[in-house]
């Protein structure tokens, strides 16, 4: 083997390290640019009226209250379906399922559901909830559609959280005569709760930003008021941003940036909330 001098090898290491540092900078810079641009350009549009008024003149003036409220309804509607079902599926996979073909099939389904494109969920929601179940273009259809999409995530996070509960606890409970359900109800679930909630908050954050499915199953661009029942159409922040950014000519730029800012704040604050819950739980576990 022809030995290269140390200096050449050191030099190539230095070059390689510079390259991968540059790559990391290439990842970081756009994120900072995006977030800063949205804050700087959007802050001017934010006012009390913008947040509390209904839109007028095709969204060119007035506020975006119905879109904000619609997005919160949508997050709630999604999690109302996706969380209990996800937790129950997580319980099934960790506490009841045996290592057989059915369990393998469930795991395969979870992996694949997580990878299905969001627009395909939109088609599914349109075919099943809007048309087959006759829920129409509505908040209910959209919530159910987003819940199907969120399910893979709530199942996975619930399963992880339950698996993190020490096996000895469960065995101890069973040993003193508790039934399996009593053990789950009084021991496993309370222990796993922070992890489950972290997953739920992340799923809500994702539901808040999702656009393609609700474009298909019931978001409306302009509505005079808030939806009064789950069977009505609704406005939502991401769909509103899409329409004012791409489809309304003569839209004041600052209004569009303002909508983007509000959406980003809603989505990222739920992300931060999830991180805080996770860190606090870890802290508590370490202190015990």
């Amino acid at each position, binding site marked *: 083997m022809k030995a290269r001098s140390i200096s050449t090898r*050191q030099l190539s*290491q230095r070059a*390689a*390290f510079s390259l*991968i540092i540059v*790559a*990391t900078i290439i*990842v970081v810079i*756009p994120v900072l640019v*995006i977030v800063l641009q*949205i804050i700087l350009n959007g802050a001017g549009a934010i006012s009390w009226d913008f947040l509390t008024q209904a839109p007028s003149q095709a969204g060119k003036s007035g506020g975006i209250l119905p879109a904000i409220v619609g997005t919160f309804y949508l997050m709630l509607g999604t999690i109302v379906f996706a969380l209990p079902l996800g937790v*129950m*599926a997580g*319980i*099934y996979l960790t506490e*009841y*399922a045996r290592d057989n073909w*059915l369990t393998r099939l*469930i795991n395969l*389904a979870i*992996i*694949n*559901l*997580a*990878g*299905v*494109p*969001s*627009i*395909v*969920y*939109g*088609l*599914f929601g349109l*075919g*099943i909830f809007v*048309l087959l179940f006759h829920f129409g273009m509505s908040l209910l259809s959209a919530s159910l559609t987003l819940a*199907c999409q969120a*399910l*893979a995530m709530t199942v996975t996070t619930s399963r992880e959280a339950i698996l993190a509960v020490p096996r000895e606890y*469960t*065995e101890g409970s*069973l040993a003193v*005569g508790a*039934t*399996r359900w*009593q053990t789950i109800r009084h021991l496993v679930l309370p222990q796993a709760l922070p992890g489950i909630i972290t997953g739920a908050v992340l799923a809500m954050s994702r539901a*808040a*930003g999702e656009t*393609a499915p609700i474009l298909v199953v019931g978001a409306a661009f302009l509505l005079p008021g808030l939806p009064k029942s789950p069977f009505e159409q609704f406005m939502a922040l991401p769909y509103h*941003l*899409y329409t004012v950014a*791409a489809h309304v000519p003569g839209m004041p730029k600052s209004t*569009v*940036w303002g909508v983007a800012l509000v959406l*980003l704040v809603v*989505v*990222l604050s739920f*992300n931060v909330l999830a*991180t805080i819950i996770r860190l606090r739980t870890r802290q508590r576990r370490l202190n015990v």
Partner: protein
Amino acid sequence: MLEQLSPATAAREVEKNLRRRWRPGEKFIESWIFLAGILTIVILLGIIALLLKEGLPIFLDTPPWEFFFGTKWYPVSDPPTFGIMPFFMATLWVTLVATAISVPVGVACAAYLSEVAPAEVREVVKPIIEILAGIPSVVMGFIGLMILSPLVQSTFNLNTGLSGLTAGIMLSLMSLPIIISVSEDALRAVPSDFRQAAYALGATRWETIWHVSIPGALSGITAAIMLGVGRAIGETMTVLMVAGGALAIPVSPTEPMMPMTAAIASGIGNAVRGGLQYQALFAIGLVLFVITLAVNLVADRVLERQKRKFTR
């Protein structure tokens, strides 16, 4: 005798004895838990069934050959033609651009974060990547519209900045988080003895990364790349907003184009239920579903292999 039983079997034995007391409430809850457990299968099968039911009838009107290789998509002319080649090529271009950027940058970033970066740098960069993962696709589309497309237009001297290239660049940003996090996990899974051995033989840190860590993590990195590609293929809002939406077959990434996801999103609002266009759009959905399913299944297999590699 008892200590030979696994905990799960022991629990079942205990439960069998407890079962003598009838607890209807618990049986009720447990049957619901089972139903929730198989719900994911039901939804996946439901998606497949619906796409087949609504999408396949298009082949009664347009033969598969014309559908897949047809170059013209005229849903409202008389007679309508449904050829998805333009959409397919657009998806291909956009995904190629996205992958060409996100793979080298993402893997290099993962190598830096897991092998080189000091803890303080990691603690700053990781949350930033999490923020990137959290930015909704419609916001990315908006940024592409406002910031990137004028830039692309002036740099490449184009008629419009809305092009496959613009969409691809935005998509590369969106697939970076998954590529970085999965690659990083794979690199971390390479046992440190391997690196120690390389150092002991006199290798530099970089030589160790290049000849030991990266080859050891290669299947995990491959899976990361596939997941990133799957993400780019399935992304809808960004390509709908910035790819340009032209219906001709794109021959260069700098042209405006309409990827498959955007074709569904922009057409479904005008399609009459059960009409030919409706069927054709569901058939595109089916094609998308099959592609992403294949990508995810293979990625999962590769990832499993990586996990087993270093467990002894």
